């Protein structure tokens, strides 16, 4: 197989396969969660749940002071690489072109050097997060093989993308093919691991906020 065959395989059939698995898996999960519903609450509601629910979806982006005090590293590094990952994924011009071709909608992107710098920071933050996880006895004890798998499938698309952008793997079709393949692995793994939090985190936040809102409590 030549590098070009590899690139065409990853850009064509493998990509279709990956997004099919991703879409089927993720929508099964979400549709099941949403149709399950919640146990009926017979108490008289003290307030509406919708607005507090939506507000909580947003408010949980801010770490609460207690958590920051207890684990500043986790909050700073965690926020850093999550934001970096989303920026690299959604605001890099080739990715916007890909999204436009798949979903039919596009948006403005950031200049390449900015995405490049953010990617470098994100890679370093991810390495720091792994080192921290391995060096902290409690974290290491709590970590399962799945956690390391998730770290790897998150790290690889960023690393291969960085290498492809800087043309550090030659020939380029091989570099780009490896990057696309790693993204496909991410998409395939996503619905069956804790990576589902990319979507379910917002459902959970909404439920939390809505429950508190119904009780008339701020969340």
């Amino acid at each position, binding site marked *: 197989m030549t590098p070009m065959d590899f690139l065409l395989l990853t850009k064509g059939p493998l990509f279709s396969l990956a997004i099919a698995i991703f879409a089927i898996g993720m929508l099964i999960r979400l549709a099941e969660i949403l149709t399950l519903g919640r146990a009926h609450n017979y108490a008289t509601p003290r307030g509406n749940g919708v607005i507090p629910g939506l507000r909580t979806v947003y408010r949980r982006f801010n770490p609460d002071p207690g958590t920051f005090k207890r684990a500043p590293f986790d909050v700073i590094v965690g926020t850093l690489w999550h934001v970096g990952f989303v920026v690299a994924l959604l605001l890099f011009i080739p990715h916007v*072109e890909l999204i436009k071709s798949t979903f039919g909608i596009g948006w403005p992107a950031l200049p390449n050097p900015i995405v490049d710098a953010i990617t470098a920071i994100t890679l370093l933050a991810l390495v720091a997060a792994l080192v921290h996880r391995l060096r902290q006895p409690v974290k290491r004890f709590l970590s399962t093989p799945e956690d390391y798998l998730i770290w790897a499938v998150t790290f690889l698309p960023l690393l291969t993308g960085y290498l492809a952008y800087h043309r550090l793997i030659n020939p380029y079709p091989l570099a780009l093919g490896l990057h696309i393949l790693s993204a496909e692995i991410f998409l395939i793994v996503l619905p069956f691991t804790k990576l589902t939090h990319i979507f379910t985190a917002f459902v959970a936040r909404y439920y939390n906020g809505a429950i508190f809102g119904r009780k008339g409590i701020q969340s």
Partner: protein
Amino acid sequence: MAAPTTLGESLRQHGVSRRGFLKFCAATATMMALPPSMAPAIAKALEQARRPSVIWLSFQECTGCTESLTRSSSPNVENLIFDVISLDYHHTLQAAAGDAAEHAREQAMHDNAGEYLVVVDGSLPGPNANPGYSTIAGISNYDMLMETISGAAAVVAVGSCAAFGGLPKADPNPTGAVSVQDLVKDKPVINVSGCPPVPMVITGVLAQFLTFGTLPELDEYGRPRAFFGQSIHDRCYRRPFYDKGLFAETFDDEGAKAGWCLYRLGCKGPMTYNACATMKWNGGASWPVEAGYPCLGCSEPDFWDAGGFYKALSVPTGAPGDVLLTAGVVGAAVGVAAGLKSRSESKQAAKYHDKVTAQELEEKL
């Protein structure tokens, strides 16, 4: 006046000055990544080179490669070098026809056994395909290629069709087209890909063969590394715009007028390895990207099937939108069914006051 026997004589007869010839030799040395001190050696070897016999086979092709070589803007040293090889057989260029033409090929093979070069442009129906898709003088392309290369020193596959199958091999490949390197295993094959290839690359390969009697260093696709070693993207004069993130989004917007990067208009320069950006076309006048047109990636294998010419390199080749929609509908349907099933199960359990222990829940996980 007797026909010139060496390249040097021929060039002088054509009025090429010594200075012009040495400039060509220096350029050739540079292109082959040799030190400038090699230029006199190249000049000496080329001057004394005897006219090598070249048999040019045209199979499933459009003659664009021959056009590329013969329609250069003005007679130049590259053309003259091409004139002074002994081109003993070429459908398009030879005067002879019919039996006489085929006889010329057989004669050249016989007289220069083991020493002649075979240049092929065009792909050909493979050994398992219907040979009737392309024949010359009643001989199938496959038989003619195999017979002709039997006494060849080397085979040069000119153009992406000969090198990789090209347009005839594009999906669904109705003629069962294959490339030269798919068939020729016991002779050196040099792929000079491109649709068409840069003329100087062909003459550069011939110059190396005449100078050193050796074949150039090849990349993994069998292409001369001296010409195909770097990507269009890496040598593109618009690269600074890519690095700055300045892109033309349509062919007539302000970015296009300002000469910004053509990535979003489908430029395949990042994956394409060729010499266009450095050697340019039409005597160094311009090249596609300079003319405001995205690189098609024509020197890479299967470029016809590598996605739309005007779609960015990152865009998938299939129909991801349709796949996503179908898979989404299927996933949502299965998810709703699973959710409703669990819901009715839990209602049933509540109705009959089913009990569950912590241990049972643990086992379910």
